[in-house]
């Protein structure tokens, strides 16, 4: 039912380089500029200006000094690093593995794929509401099942920072793993079948075909995906806001949810902005790695 063949319109060929340095003239140049104008406007008015405004409001030494001595900030920073590291890496490794599973040519596996994709297509707020409701209190599905079938009085999940963090991570992985599995599946499908056949004829088993053929070919895709996912996960707000809501007592808050509370509820917007800005050095490293990696992909294979 699902046809995931990569529809390359025409066999891929490296783009011709000869024309790169020619200059555009007259109406050519006008059209080219007109086409890029909408994005340039969006970028300047809605990216560059708000960013500069944010830096102007929040990049002040005394604010950072205040943050460093704020235990809530330090705890949410630790939460963010745990959330990003665990969620991104577990999700990516599992997605890479599952994309191999979904390559198997079985009818039932093909039928299973749309079910597996469902969480990605489910909007974030409903999905996380369901997680929250499954876990909160003794009426939640999980505690009910634990009690009815195993006689266990389940813990109050959001009474512990560790458990709350864990469930935030589980819910995030549940929602986003299908997207990356689809991306790896598309990557695997673009590996020429001859290569895999040749490896098999040479006696390579499952593991060696994966290790010596598939992994080197997917390494770049895996790396780029991990970087993009790191950026997106770092900025994620909805997961923690709805699944654990920061409970218990802001102990499971991440930077994005704590920054909102500082900005709105505690009435200190500059401090909330400064909090977000402390993520910027790390984001710059990730973005620069991504820029360099994306330039290199042109010459790959």
């Amino acid at each position: 039912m699902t046809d995931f063949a990569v529809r390359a319109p025409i066999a891929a060929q490296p783009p011709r380089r000869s024309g790169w340095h020619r200059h555009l003239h007259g109406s050519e140049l006008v059209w080219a500029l007109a086409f890029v104008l909408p994005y340039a406007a969006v970028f300047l008015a809605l990216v560059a200006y708000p960013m500069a405004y944010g830096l102007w409001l929040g990049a002040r030494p005394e604010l950072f000094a205040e943050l460093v001595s704020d235990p809530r900030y330090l705890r949410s920073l630790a939460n963010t690093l745990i959330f990003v590291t665990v969620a991104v890496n577990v999700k990516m490794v599992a997605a890479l593995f599952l994309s191999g599973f979904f390559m198997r040519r079985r009818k039932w596996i093909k039928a299973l794929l749309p079910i597996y994709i469902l969480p990605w297509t489910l909007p974030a707020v409903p999905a996380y509401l369901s997680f929250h409701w499954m876990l909160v209190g003794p009426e939640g599905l999980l505690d009910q099942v634990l009690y009815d079938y195993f006689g266990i009085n389940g813990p109050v999940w959001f009474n512990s920072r560790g458990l709350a963090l864990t469930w935030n991570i589980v819910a995030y992985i549940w929602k986003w793993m299908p997207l990356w599995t689809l991306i790896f599946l598309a990557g695997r499908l673009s590996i020429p079948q001859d290569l895999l056949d040749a490896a098999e004829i040479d006696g390579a088993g499952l593991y060696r075909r994966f290790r010596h053929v598939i992994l080197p070919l997917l390494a770049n895709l895996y790396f780029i995906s991990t970087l993009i996912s790191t950026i997106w996960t770092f900025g994620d707000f909805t997961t923690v806001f709805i699944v654990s809501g920061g409970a218990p007592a802001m102990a499971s808050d991440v930077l994005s949810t704590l920054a909102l509370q500082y900005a709105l509820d505690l009435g200190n917007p500059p401090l909330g902005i400064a909090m977000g800005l402390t993520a910027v050095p790390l984001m710059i490293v990730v973005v620069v790695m991504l820029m360099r990696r994306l330039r290199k992909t042109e010459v790959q294979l």
Partner: protein
Amino acid sequence: MTVALPSRRAPAPPRRRLRRPLVEGGSAVLGFLIAFWSLVPIYNMLLIALAPEGNNEYAGKLWPDPISLDSFIGLWTEATDELENVWEEFGNSIVIGLSVMVLTVAIGSLAAFSVSRLRLAREWTLSDAALVTYIIPSSFLLVPFFRVMHEYGLSDNLLAVILAEVAFATPYAILVLQHYGKLIPIELDEAARVDGASAVQVYLRIYLPLIAPALAAVGTYALLFAWNDYLYQYLLLTSQRHTTVAVGLEQFFDDDDSPWNYMMALAIVYSLPPIAMFYALRRYIAAGLTLGAVKG
């Protein structure tokens, strides 16, 4: 780590023939676990939505008994206070979602076409500019955005949310479109230009049709981006009249005695449009998602 690969027709050597049942059994177990993992939260939504009001928890039964459709009917009749303007909320969500989808696809493909096909500049100038957007994650720019939108005269205006979401969805769209565009030989454009086609004609008649899978992927991504967003819709739309479903769902939390079955019914109905879109376009989407993938 075992990665199951498609079987070949060639007869397997004896050692591997013994492993076959293991692989098959293992993948059956894995398949069951995947289905379970994917469906439990969705099952939980149905369980709560289909229970009669006031009895909205799991009570040792795998299915509510009796099944009640009150909550879905209640959506239609706006049965409770929380649902008072639910259809306006839907209207707002749809306007935002469709606008973000159309604008992201249009702006992203125009920019990618200009830089990669008309060769306005080197390809990486555009992808680098797009990636600069990611340096400060959008959820950390709330206060600046709120004030900037006020300066633009867009306070409590759907357009503010649309523009913010377009700004944050376009970078990924550009990366995907630029990458996919490399599969299309530039000679096609050049041949058309020699035949007298204008830049607009090349864009409309050659570029867009050939990158259709990537457009489908990017469009779905943008719609899901808008549908997933809560923060900007909450922050930039202050009046009741402009509330969206995502914000309306969260407002059920304001009251401890909210009718949770209505909340879940609303959550389920809200989930249907992106699900429908994905399954309608799924053949194209996977093909369009090959960002940075290997090239054969």
